[in-house]
């Protein structure tokens, strides 16, 4: 299992569009990918779950990947968060 932490910079947090992009990105990997924020957590491959977490600007999130391609998944998602959120 691999993970990284990230503080959301986007002004309106993980809103519909980045949530959609995140689901797309996470869907590229076999590993189970989980997004955690405070006490809440969600499957990064499920758009409603992600949007339902209502992650806001300045929230710290942890992204976890568990599976065969977890290294690649973490690298790609880290890049994704930095570029989009």
């Amino acid at each position, binding site marked *: 299992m691999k993970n990284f932490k990230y503080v959301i*910079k*986007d*002004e*309106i*947090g993980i*809103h*519909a*569009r980045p*949530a*959609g992009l995140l*689901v*797309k990105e996470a869907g590229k990997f076999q590993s189970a990918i989980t997004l955690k924020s405070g006490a809440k957590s969600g*499957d990064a*491959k*499920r*758009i*409603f*779950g992600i*949007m*339902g977490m*209502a992650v*806001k600007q300045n929230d710290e999130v942890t992204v976890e990947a568990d599976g065969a391609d977890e290294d690649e998944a973490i690298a790609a998602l880290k890049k994704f968060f930095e570029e989009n959120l």
Partner: protein
Amino acid sequence: MIVLEGKSVFNDICMGNISFYKRKESVIKRYKVEDTDAEIKRFESAKEKGKKQLQSLYEKALADVGEANAAIFEIHQMMLEDLDYCESIINIINSQQVNAEYAVGVTADNFTAMFAAMDDAYMQGRAADVKDVSERLLKILTNAEDGIQILNDKVVIAADDLVPSETVQLDKDKVLGFIMQNGSANSHTAILARSMGIPAIIGLGEDLKKEFDGKYVIVDGFHGKVYIEPDEETLAVMEKRRKESLERKELLQQLKDKEDITLDGTKINIYANIGNSSDVGNVLKNDANGIGLFRSEFLYLENSDYPTEEQQFAAYKTVAENMAGKKVIIRTLDIGADKKVDYFKLDKEENPALGYRAIRICLTRKEIFKTQLRALYRAAIFGNISIMFPMIISVEEVKAIKVIIAQVKEELKQEGIPFKENVETGIMIETPASVMISDELAKEVDFFSVGTNDLTQYTLAIDRQNQKLEPFYNAHHKAVLKMIKMAADNAHAEGKWIGICGELGADITLTEEFLKMGIDELSVSASMVLEVRKRVREIDLTK
């Protein structure tokens, strides 16, 4: 006559009969099914069909209103595929042995409730998306019509609020405008109405009654008013205003995609001035070939504290991306004089126009300046950004700016943050001093942009706010025109280009003179772009 007031999301006027949007409310019946597998298959095939519909809606919206607005249909596709959503539907079918319609309805209610309960206005608004997606499934399952209204006459659409798929499916040629009971300036209806360029007034509330269906109405988007069964006087006033607005639109139609070129083949760039990242839509709609002045002050004026680098980066990046490779000239902070911001804690000045403002603040409070420059150099990767510095009076200032730019780049490099190495930089010519030394300044920068408002005020020593000075004021004063000519000659002698971004740039009685001076660019308010283009295309410099 009944007058209603709401919030306008697009400035235009239209008049016509009201058509209350008729929705086929799908009544969901619950019934028992024996073969749950077959029922799940029915749901799966409806889902596939829905995805296909959304894909074609996405493509239609992409062509009509652009990627950013079309993205919602891509998100709807993802919602339709969402595992939580689908599992919930399948579970209900399996566990309760019920029909797919019922399972979709219950699931939709649950997910809608989840969004509606969130303490975030944006997310609450997403409940509409869940509803929209679910309605689509239900329509497919019940073989209901697709919701496309066949309109025979041009009408003003009235509704509580429209969901995105409803707005985009409307036959645009038949829609004069929108009047909505609910909705916010950020609702999809508002966004789409703006990109379609039709008047829309939202938030009219319960006063907008269904019984108005078929009645004659005037929608005044300039004032956010709706006149139902207007009297003759109102009608005449509005008719006149609508005509003016229409003439402008016709102008727009004729000149869109036309080059900014004179009869003898002299080219000039006509750009637009903007004061907020949200103005880009208007720039593109009016077919400007770039942004000649992006006033970055809004970032500071709208904030209660210094805007962060990320905030600024996001705003610049968005504009650069939306302009898709067209030039975007961003002017650095021009606070001071008449633009006051509390958190800057600036002292009261006897003579603010000649005071501590613009580049003078930036060169003494370098952290503020550096934050902005970092954001600009980073955003420059995403489009064709140029940077312009205001209120320059000396070569030393330009050199000081260059030192700071070099520091900023070095810091970004060390932090491993990507940025664009070579960004075009220029200065505003708005002080008589900068004109007099424009030969030297031209050696130091890539371009000039003349700020005629300040240049006129400083050259004539006339405060434009002072009514008493009106008889002494001459917008076309020779001194100012000679200054512009001088700066132009000096720019060209060094092979640099020069533009005008002040009010005079849009003065079509001067366009010919500017062209003769060899002015390379005119940056005007978006609504003036096509009028200036029209003038340019009439001029023959050989005559």
